[in-house]
């Protein structure tokens, strides 16, 4: 009896893991066929790949050209983070179950955020370059929308997981929605939110490096030009600079976040 009881779940579990493996194998098979993935090319390509890196010995005479697009990259990331956060904050409270006005506006806000989040950063950039023309402006708009999606998702998860006690207390004494949010929710989530905003700034710096590939301003414009003109030594210098800047900003952000929470 007892042996049967323990045997059956075990058999079921085994069947389930074999089933998972089978589904996985079929998916991979289909993936190979659909993408015509070329494993041998991987190895022949690897040689080319490393040769490519060999030619990228950085030539730092290109540095003076790099500064102004680099500055623009950081400006795009900063402005997008600020504007994105300002727009995201009211959306967060609309989209969280415990601070929403009513189910309909909550649903609308959530759907909007899901759609915003499902569009990749480069696609936003390409879209706004087509609408607004080349330059930093489409980059700022694209990254702003992108940040709203990321920040609101993280934020509303935080708001929904707060201690409901202060909320109930303020409602019990007759506070309206705005006062409840300001005095019961904000003090609980402020530090976490600032840390999320720093994190979004990190993401935006990385994204604003590449959006220039589709013409949305910043250092990516230079990156693409060097690649197109086969200027590999300039490319090497550029990549070293990007690496250092991203590292610096990440380091600052990680340090600031560790002090916050």
């Amino acid at each position: 009896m007892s042996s049967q009881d323990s045997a059956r779940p075990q058999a079921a579990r085994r069947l389930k893991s074999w089933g998972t493996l089978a589904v996985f194998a079929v998916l991979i098979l289909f993936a190979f066929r659909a993408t015509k993935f070329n494993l041998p090319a991987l190895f022949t390509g690897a040689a080319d790949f490393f040769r490519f890196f060999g030619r990228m010995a950085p030539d730092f005479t290109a540095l003076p050209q790099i500064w102004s697009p680099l500055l623009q990259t950081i400006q795009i990331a900063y402005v997008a983070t600020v504007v994105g956060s300002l727009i995201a904050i009211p959306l967060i409270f609309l989209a969280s179950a415990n601070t929403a006005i009513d189910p309909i506006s909550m649903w609308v806000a959530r759907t909007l955020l899901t759609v915003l989040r499902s569009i990749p950063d480069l696609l936003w950039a390409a879209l706004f370059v087509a609408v607004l023309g080349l330059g930093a402006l489409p980059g700022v708009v694209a990254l702003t929308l992108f940040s709203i999606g990321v920040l609101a998702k993280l934020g509303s998860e935080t708001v929904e997981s707060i201690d409901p006690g202060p909320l109930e207390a303020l409602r019990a004494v007759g506070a309206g929605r705005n006062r409840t949010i300001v005095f019961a929710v904000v003090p609980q989530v402020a530090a976490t939110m600032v840390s999320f905003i720093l994190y979004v700034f990190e993401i935006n710096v990385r994204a604003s490096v590449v959006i220039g590939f589709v013409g949305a301003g910043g250092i990516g414009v230079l990156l693409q030009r060097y690649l197109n003109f086969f200027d590999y030594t300039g490319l090497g210098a550029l990549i070293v600079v990007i690496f250092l800047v991203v590292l610096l900003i990440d380091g600052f952000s990680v340090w600031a976040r560790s002090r916050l929470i």
Partner: protein
Amino acid sequence: MVKTLQTPPTDIPRAPASVRRNRSLLIIGAALLVALFVLALVTMNLPTWSRVLSGLQRNAMPLLRGLVRPETSVFELAWNSMVTTFFMAILGTILGAVLAFPMSFLAAGNLLGGTRWALPGKAVLVAVRTFPEIVLAVIFVAAAGPGPTAGIMAMGIHSIGYLGKVFSDVIEGIDQGPMEAIRAAGGNQLHTFLFAVVPQVLPEFASNVLYRFEINLRSAAVLGMVGAGGIGLPLIQRLQFRRWAEVSMFIIVIVVFIIVVDAISSNIRRRLV
């Protein structure tokens, strides 16, 4: 009675010095951030309002009109290239996970017997994470020719950076008990690894791989813009020729596909951990 309520209380003590200092620091910080913001806006040479408005008039209206009535004749093309994109993301993620697995053990301090032995591994992972994925894609397009293979390689290499880091974080957080138990029972290094480390880390590894897959699906959708396969190429062509009705069809396919895959993937992740 009413009068006493209305007179402002005078015996509230002043805030302690530390609170006042923090408050003034906060105000200075906020002012600094606002100043930086204004400075950035002024020096960024943004176009004039009239240019923005005319651009919006010419392009945003056709785009919005297209979103309401997308061009259905390109649905099949959009769908097929999105399916290819999906499979690219799968292979890229698997490639990344396979390569990240050994890397993560070289970046986990607790298995190497000291944090400093893990530093080289950690440094490599940071370098990989910082290298822009789209540059990798361009390099692989040059090395392996245009097509999904280049995109898969780029995603695979780039994913090592993220996956290697989270894998090694998971490994550093494991419970030492089972390892000691197996060593005490006479197991060797391989035994402890197989029966004490792997079972503990597998569910979290799987969950992180799925999360990376969600990110890679978004990347795969745009890598085609530099010729690395998937839906990006047909989409950017239509964007360049401003065929807004067709662009809208592509965007709808991408958005719906990603939302559905995200929902399934996060459902599985919730059950894993």
